[in-house]
């Protein structure tokens, strides 16, 4: 709890909700002693759109577009999580080809998310140029996804039982060309950022997350893997077509910002690997399950499914009472837990580190606010 007093030697700094590097409308109250932080309290909810309440008042299909807007940077993972949960409730079997398309688009979307994070994070640290290089790369993925899904950011692409549109040869060759291009850029990124002495000094040993803290706070995603715990839903609780691909889960050692950064960079390479394998092994067949009911009316029951988004575990908990509308949908979003631990790690750091730590866990505020 933060209380401000004039006679005390500390003072309160209000960071946000409008601040260049709070990535949206996050407000953090910082109790400061000079440039050092003694306590921090985030204020969230500025972007609260009551998605969970909306879910209770719409039928299952009508809630689909909402999923692209919870985490707009990795919208397809949220699409997938929701579709998987409803498919589980309905007992639908998704055709193999549809699963492959889901994996390909999902990983492309993960790449866009990580690339944007990479650029935005460097911008937090004061380097502007990498931001635009990443956007240049990201634009190519957006063009690819645009040609398939029709939108560039808030995708609403997956449907219960499959995907509505098949991928064509142009998409496949475009994706291959893109992966080739992205791989040729790693060296530039390394020289510009990863090896940069200023960057290393800003990130090494700052914002440590220990394994115990991760367990207590339920941290997931690259922030967790940076601390050395190889927990990735794609491997730990395989879903979709992921078990059929070979990929590694990069982990860090110390759990500082640098490790989280490296984990994300390596993860991009793993995503490229997955996409390549999926394109090579793409099976033929239908893209939509055969008997998808026109009216989605799942039987009574509840289900929890988890998928790995760019930020961590997205879990969706649906309670159905046999109606066309879900009785309750709970969205377990990764940044929510990640942010609550991050606040702990602000203590005894400089205000410049707040920006660095905040950026390093890659929060998407609308996802936290829902």
């Amino acid at each position: 709890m933060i209380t401000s007093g004039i006679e005390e030697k500390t003072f309160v700094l209000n960071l946000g909700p409008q601040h260049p590097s709070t990535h949206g409308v996050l407000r953090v109250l910082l109790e400061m002693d000079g440039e050092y932080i003694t306590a921090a309290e985030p204020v969230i909810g500025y972007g609260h759109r009551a998605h969970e309440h909306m879910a209770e008042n719409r039928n299952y299909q009508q809630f689909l577009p909402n999923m692209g807007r919870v985490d707009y940077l990795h919208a397809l993972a949220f699409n997938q999580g929701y579709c998987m949960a409803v498919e589980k409730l309905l007992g639908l079997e998704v055709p193999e080809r549809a699963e492959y398309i889901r994996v390909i688009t999902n990983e492309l979307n993960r790449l866009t998310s990580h690339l944007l994070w990479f650029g935005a994070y460097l911008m937090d640290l004061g380097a502007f140029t990498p931001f635009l290089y990443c956007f240049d790369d990201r634009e190519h993925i957006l063009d690819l996804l645009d040609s398939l899904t029709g939108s560039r950011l808030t995708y609403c692409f997956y449907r219960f039982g499959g995907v509505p549109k098949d991928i064509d040869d142009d998409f496949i060759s475009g994706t291959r060309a893109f992966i080739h291009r992205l791989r040729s850029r790693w060296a530039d990124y390394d020289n510009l950022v990863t090896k940069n002495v200023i960057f290393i000094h800003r990130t090494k040993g700052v914002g440590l997350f220990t394994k115990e803290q991760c367990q207590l706070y339920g941290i997931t995603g690259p922030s967790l893997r940076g601390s050395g715990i190889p927990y990735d839903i794609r491997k730990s609780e395989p879903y979709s077509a992921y078990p059929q691909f070979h990929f590694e889960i990069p982990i860090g050692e110390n759990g500082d910002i640098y490790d989280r950064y490296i984990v994300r960079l390596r993860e991009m390479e793993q995503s490229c690997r997955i996409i390549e394998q999926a394109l090579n092994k793409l099976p033929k067949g239908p893209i939509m399950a055969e008997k998808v009911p026109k009216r989605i009316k799942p039987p009574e029951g509840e289900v929890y499914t988890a998928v790995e988004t760019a930020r961590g575990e997205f879990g969706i908990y649906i309670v159905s009472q046999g109606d066309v509308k879900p009785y309750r949908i709970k969205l377990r979003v990764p940044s929510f837990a990640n942010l609550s631990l991050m606040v702990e790690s602000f203590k005894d750091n400089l205000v410049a580190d707040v920006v660095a730590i905040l950026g390093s866990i890659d929060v998407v505020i609308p996802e936290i606010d829902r």
Partner: protein
Amino acid sequence: MDVLTHSLGSEGVRMIVGLIGVIALVSVNALFLIWMERKVAAHMQLRPGPMEVGPHGAIQTVCDAVKLMGKELITPEEVDKPIYYLAPIVVFLPVLLTFLVIPFSQTMVIKDLNVGIILILAFSSLSVLAILMAGWSSKNKYSVFGAIRSVAQNIAYEIPLLITVMSVILMVGSFKLTDIVVAQSRYWFILVQPLAFILYIICATAETNRTPFDLPEAESELVAGFHTEYSGMRFALFFLAEYTNMFIVSAVATVLFLGGWHGPILPGAIWFLLKVYALIFLIMWFRWTFPRVRFDQLVTFAWKILIPLSFVNLLLTALALKIF
């Protein structure tokens, strides 16, 4: 002209013409530099930059200047008014004065003072006072942070700057800028003082508050740092001062290390400006490549690396002079 010369003396006319020339140069130079900065940044980032007003957006900065002049000067209620009003002027005036001694060519120098280099260093240190005034009077926590950082940074970087300059002065034996340039008629001092040049450029970047040392206005941390609360022309003066400061530190570097006006074929003044703009390009290049350093690292860097190295350089120079 004769009347003027008669009543003021040739020295007086020189001063007045020089003053007008300096004011014109400062504003035109700042407009050009801002345009150049935008273009450099844009092309490094694979985009064209301003393209709409004039050929390749050349008049864009003029439009921006007019816009800034036309803007309302917002004064927040809580500010310490006299200091708040004074700060933009204090930041700008010393910058103008330093032009007094810069030798654009053998003859194009307004007043060739005996203590030229010291005058420049003294006046350019005044800008930190203005930043402190601006930050402190704004009554904004971010501004105060910017001001405090700026003071600590300038104190830390003034020392290595002076010491590196000292090693050149040791070689020439004069504080007069024209003497320093004349001493380089055979070879440029960058050849014998490469370390001093690198140290000087680093310190100069820090002195002018440019990335990677732009902590007083660190955008992603402190919103806009010390000038958060300034708007319109007051903000423009800070902006103008920043770019003019860049010109001055580059001009000094040209004088100290790059042989001033010396160069073949072209007239001296053009050589001088070319060298200055090349250095400015270098500083811009830094800005669009590097992330920002952290405040404590910045100070550590100054005290633990720059100052020892500059002392070593000074000692070596003195030794070399003694031996040869």
